[in-house]
């Protein structure tokens, strides 16, 4: 970002919105609650990380990822597997079976790929289906008993593998790794074909990862949800703060009751943690963008043929950047679960976690990291506030109508549906009239 007055003013304006949200008296526009303001800020910071990930794919390389939700979800699996306490007896019940099942799956795919590369057409035609179906049956033979054995261990409270009991911050890079692995599989198949195919393939992987999380109870309890994911290191629990006499005294000295002081402290510590991650990422992405590598990526995006003529391997670079971007999305997913303190697979909605992120990137300015951050904060703010603004606006519009009229009731009931419509409208308007976004690339 060039440090000009316009960009500084944009960020200052965003900060002012959040401050007003917290500091002003309660009115039609602002809630006047620091709690809400910090809540928006925290999710906004995570959304900014997500938007950076999508910007790496779209802004640097022009790759359309329509399955961001899947990479967020698979990243969210990491805190469960890393930070939760182990479910005693679960691994000995079925852990080896699960490992054997996945070994069988990997061996099957590897064998099929090998046959596809080496054998003649006639051999392939018969051998590949045989290998795939046979391998799938072997996988099922290991997997079925193992997963039900795990689900039988301590079903009411856990019924899953549990985690390693390590600090939750370690789960963040692990989440990024998970997402990178999923991205490798998708990118390897769908890149190098026409650009729409990646969009469609990612749409698919997004839905599949979410449905796996919903249904595999041995993994993360499926729709039963995992609760009580440990807090990261500097963030205490509200209840501990409230029972500390020292904290209560200090809260009283600034004129706050212990309950709201503790929630504000926790939220502020989260904000600090997320801000550190975001700043590191921005520093890294800005460095990457300014390096020869970044120049090469832009060259590929702007003219693939010319870049290929200069000896650049387009598909390989696309795969690389796709994996990097997805890893950042996975990181954001892990951070999100850490903030929520629980894993609820039912909440992964593609409209919220894929297409809303796209709106953030496009509005902020695709190709510009600072733009993505601003877009994420702004759109998340508007999206959250639209929840209360919508009904108020509708009440204003319908104030002339008679109370109890069917049309008024219908309009009031559908006010909350207007959020998506508004987001779609913003996307289309920005794409058409200001395709370079709030903070353009150059």
């Amino acid at each position, binding site marked *: 970002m060039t440090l000009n007055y316009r960009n500084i003013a944009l960020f200052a304006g965003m900060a002012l919105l959040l401050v007003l949200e917290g500091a002003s008296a309660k009115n039609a526009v602002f809630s006047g609650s620091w709690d809400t303001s910090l809540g928006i800020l925290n999710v906004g910071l995570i959304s900014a990380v997500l938007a950076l990930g999508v910007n790496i794919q779209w802004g640097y390389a022009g790759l359309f990822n329509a399955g961001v939700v899947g990479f967020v979800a698979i990243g969210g699996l990491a805190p469960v597997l890393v930070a939760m306490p182990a479910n005693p007896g679960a691994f000995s019940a079925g852990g080896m079976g699960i490992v054997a099942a996945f070994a069988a799956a990997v061996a099957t795919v590897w064998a099929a790929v090998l046959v596809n590369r080496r054998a003649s057409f006639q051999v392939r035609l018969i051998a590949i289906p045989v290998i795939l179906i046979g391998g799938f049956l072997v996988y099922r033979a290991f997997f079925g008993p193992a997963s039900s054995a795990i689900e039988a261990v301590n079903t009411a409270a856990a019924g899953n593998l549990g985690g390693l009991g390590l600090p939750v911050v370690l789960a963040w890079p692990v989440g990024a790794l998970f997402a990178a692995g999923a991205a490798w599989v998708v990118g390897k198949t769908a890149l190098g074909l026409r650009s*729409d195919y990646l969009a469609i393939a990612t749409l698919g992987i997004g839905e599949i990862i979410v449905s796996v999380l919903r249904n595999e109870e041995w993994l993360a309890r499926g729709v039963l949800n995992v609760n009580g994911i440990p807090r990261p290191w500097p963030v205490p629990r509200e209840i501990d703060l409230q029972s500390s006499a020292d904290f209560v005294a200090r809260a009283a000295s600034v004129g706050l009751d212990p309950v709201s002081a503790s929630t504000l402290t926790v939220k502020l510590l989260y904000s600090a943690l997320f801000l550190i991650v975001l700043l590191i990422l921005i520093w890294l992405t800005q460095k990457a963008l300014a390096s020869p590598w970044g120049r090469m990526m832009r060259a590929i995006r702007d003219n693939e043929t010319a870049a290929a003529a200069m000896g650049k391997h387009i598909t390989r670079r696309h795969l690389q950047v796709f994996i990097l971007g997805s890893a950042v999305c996975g990181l954001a997913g892990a951070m999100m679960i850490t903030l929520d303190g629980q894993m609820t697979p039912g909440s992964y909605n593609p409209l919220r976690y894929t297409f809303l992120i796209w709106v953030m990137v496009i509005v902020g300015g695709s190709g510009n990291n600072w733009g993505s951050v601003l877009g994420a904060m702004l759109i998340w703010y508007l999206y959250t506030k639209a929840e209360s603004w919508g009904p108020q606006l509708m009440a204003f519009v319908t104030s002339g109508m008679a109370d109890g009229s069917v049309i008024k009731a219908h309009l009031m009931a559908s006010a909350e549906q207007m959020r998506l419509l508004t987001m779609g409208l913003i996307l289309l308007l920005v794409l058409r009239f200001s395709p370079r976004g709030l903070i353009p690339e150059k």
Partner: protein
Amino acid sequence: MDFLNAIVALLNFVIIPASAYGAQLALGALGVTLIYGILRFSNFAHGDTMAFGTAITILVTWGLQSLGVSISPLPTALLALPFGIAATAALVLGTDRAVYRFYRKKKSDPIILVMASVGVMFIMNGITRFVIGVRDIQFDDGVRFVINAREFRTATGLAEGLALRSTQVITLVTAVLVVWALFWFLGRTRTGKSMRAFSDNEDLALLSGINPERVVAVTWIIAAALATIAGTLFGLDKSFKAFNYFQLLLPIFAAAIVGGLGNPLGAIAGGFVISFSEVAVTFDFRKVVAYLVPGDWTPDGPIQLLSTEYKFAVSFAILIIVLLFRPTGIFRGKSS
């Protein structure tokens, strides 16, 4: 006897449902493939176009029902279909004018058009929820069964019942009629021929005096009709819920790509490939096997490759296999 029972069970749980679902997917995929052939982008809003068309059809159905109009034993929704098609056609022509035309004139990258279609998807989704809400809606008011399971059992003396729902028959008959009409239009009429010419070679078509805006408008109208019909048939067969139509997007795209994007015949084949694999892979064959093997050979657990929750994984797996081994699809559509 046991062999007949096995066949009836297979018909009842696999072949009939998969055929109906396949016909619905095929109609959806035809719309996607036509848009792709003429306008050259993957329309992400297609699922929500289907939802919008179905929502309007349902509203008109309710209106007709309250007026006492009925075409029993057929569902009233069939009578309401033309109104749904007209409203959807007006909507997509409006979006084309307001959104897509700008990028077409600018000759933007196809991916920008895909992105714009995502915005359109949001808006159509919002409109659909606005006009009809998010509830699950049943709007089939016709006769439920052509063949009833219990009557079938008493008539044939078989242990296994065969149920043929009227919506399944309606789906198949309508799909055959629509596909016939579409191919007649594309193959025999002047407009249809100009559409094919435009799809094959845009420059040559322009050179021979074909009006591109007219071709595009006709394509949108046909796509709207196909989407509304597919959506209404799907809704009659199962039920109407806006989010389910968004989820149909993946099988529909898979069907279009498997058949070869831009190839109408391929889209139909692709629809049936996807639906039959989806149903066969997630069906528990235990019942069928039990009829065929001696009693004590039948395994205890289900004989099912994947649980039904993973039916979307099937379309995805087929999509991946096709992309890996034959990216142009079975019928050689466009790949670049």
